[in-house]
């Protein structure tokens, strides 16, 4: 094709050929943008991309974590997630603190979930069904198949549409919503110590990374 173009070429036809290619590309990317992925496709895509990374023995844990992070950051709407987790406390945070919270919380989830990278034991993800929810959300129900090692785990993903894209706003493992769980934990901390206290604790937790701190004894008068 290149050769035929060269033989018949005048500058005019070459230019128009380039214009046609540019136009085709523009149309294609526009079409790709218009072609919405359904919530199930988003979740399925996430699983399809993550499982091969987990299986890849040539990668170190850190490399795996980095790649999974990139995929997860595209599928999850961290801004909405942060708002939902802080709920009424969101306005107690200044815009700078909100941004800081969002990035620290993101990091916290990344550190936490990366613990599971080394525990991967050929689990597979099966998409079961989609369910319409309030507020136009959609829940994608999935099952993690553990191949007879242990009972299967039911995981629901709740997605919300933002700018024409479905993104994950909550992950519900065996009925336990991540948003609800963190909201419960964070509201006490913010109520007692304000946004600064929560940010400090998150940063400490992230810095300590893997190390475990035993539960402190209850304060008298709690």
């Amino acid at each position, binding site marked *: 094709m290149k050769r035929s173009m060269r033989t018949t070429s005048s500058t005019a036809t070459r230019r128009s050929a380039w214009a046609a290619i540019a136009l085709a590309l523009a149309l294609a990317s526009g079409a790709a943008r218009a072609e919405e992925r359904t919530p199930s496709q988003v979740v399925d895509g996430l699983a399809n991309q993550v499982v091969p990374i987990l299986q890849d023995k040539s990668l170190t844990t850190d490399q795996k974590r980095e790649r999974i992070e990139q995929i997860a950051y595209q599928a999850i709407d961290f801004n*909405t997630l942060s*708002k*939902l987790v*802080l*709920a*009424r*406390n*969101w*306005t107690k945070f200044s815009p700078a603190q909100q941004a800081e919270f969002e990035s620290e919380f993101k990091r*916290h989830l990344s*550190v*936490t979930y990366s*613990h*599971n990278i080394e*525990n991967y034991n050929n689990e597979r993800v099966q998409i079961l069904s989609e*369910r*319409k*929810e*309030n*507020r136009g*959300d959609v829940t994608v129900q999935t099952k993690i198949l553990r191949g*007879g*090692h*242990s*009972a299967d785990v039911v995981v629901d993903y*709740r997605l*919300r549409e933002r700018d024409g894209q479905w993104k994950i*706003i*909550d992950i519900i493992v*065996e*009925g*336990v*919503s991540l*948003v*609800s*769980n963190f*909201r*419960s*934990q*964070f*509201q*006490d*901390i913010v109520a007692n110590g304000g946004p600064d206290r*929560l940010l400090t*604790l*998150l940063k400490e*937790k992230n810095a300590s990374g*893997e190390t*475990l*701190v*035993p*539960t402190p*004894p*209850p304060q008298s*008068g*709690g």
Partner: protein
Amino acid sequence: MPLRTALRTAAVFAAILLSACAGRQPPQPDYDPWEPLNRKVFWFNDRLDNYVLEPVARGWDYVIPDAVQRALSNFFNNLRFPIIFPNDLLQGKPHKAAEEWARFQVNTFLGGAGFFDVAARFGLEPQDEDWGQTFGVWNISPGPYLVLPVFGPSSPRDAVGLACDAASGFYIYFTAFPWVSTGATGINVVNERSRQLDTVRNAKAASLDFYVFVRNAYVQHRWKQVNDAVSGGTPLEQEDLYNEEIYENYLEHGDTP
């Protein structure tokens, strides 16, 4: 058996008492009026786990191969038949009860006394039912969160349920040989803990307040176990869980604390 009758009676009374505040409600994972006491008991349980159960389970995990752990787990799960079967019936799930009946027969006689979960391969999935769930299906609300010494997270409803589980379970047949049931319980507990080593460690690493983490997870998980049986449709949602705008309303109403 008098103990059994007494527990059953207690269960019925508790049921009547609690049904006063019944009704199908969304999960309330922050309802914890007994928090100060609960936290102390939780702390005690956590120490017990840290210094006794977890080290023993770690040793167990080191010595006992995974396949044996799984087989033991299957064995003890099979013995939950006298708990699961009646509760399937009491929750109005005769089909599930029949499945559990078949599971018990298959695993006991073809699965080497329950050590191998052959039934699961025929599509008879393991079930997880107990008296607490049945009370929930009967519209009895759990009541406030309650941490029991040794037994851990619970609620008044589930504590009564736990007593009923014990009464209708397998171990009562061995009251004449208390060392059998004690030994079996010990093995079961250590074995199950040894299969959760990473899960618990990760949960502790993931939480900023482990007490609240466990409370929230327990309440939500129990709610789901109960309501799986009840509704096939869209489950009730915890209030405002997915409401992104609540902080705006909060500003409008100006109800600063």
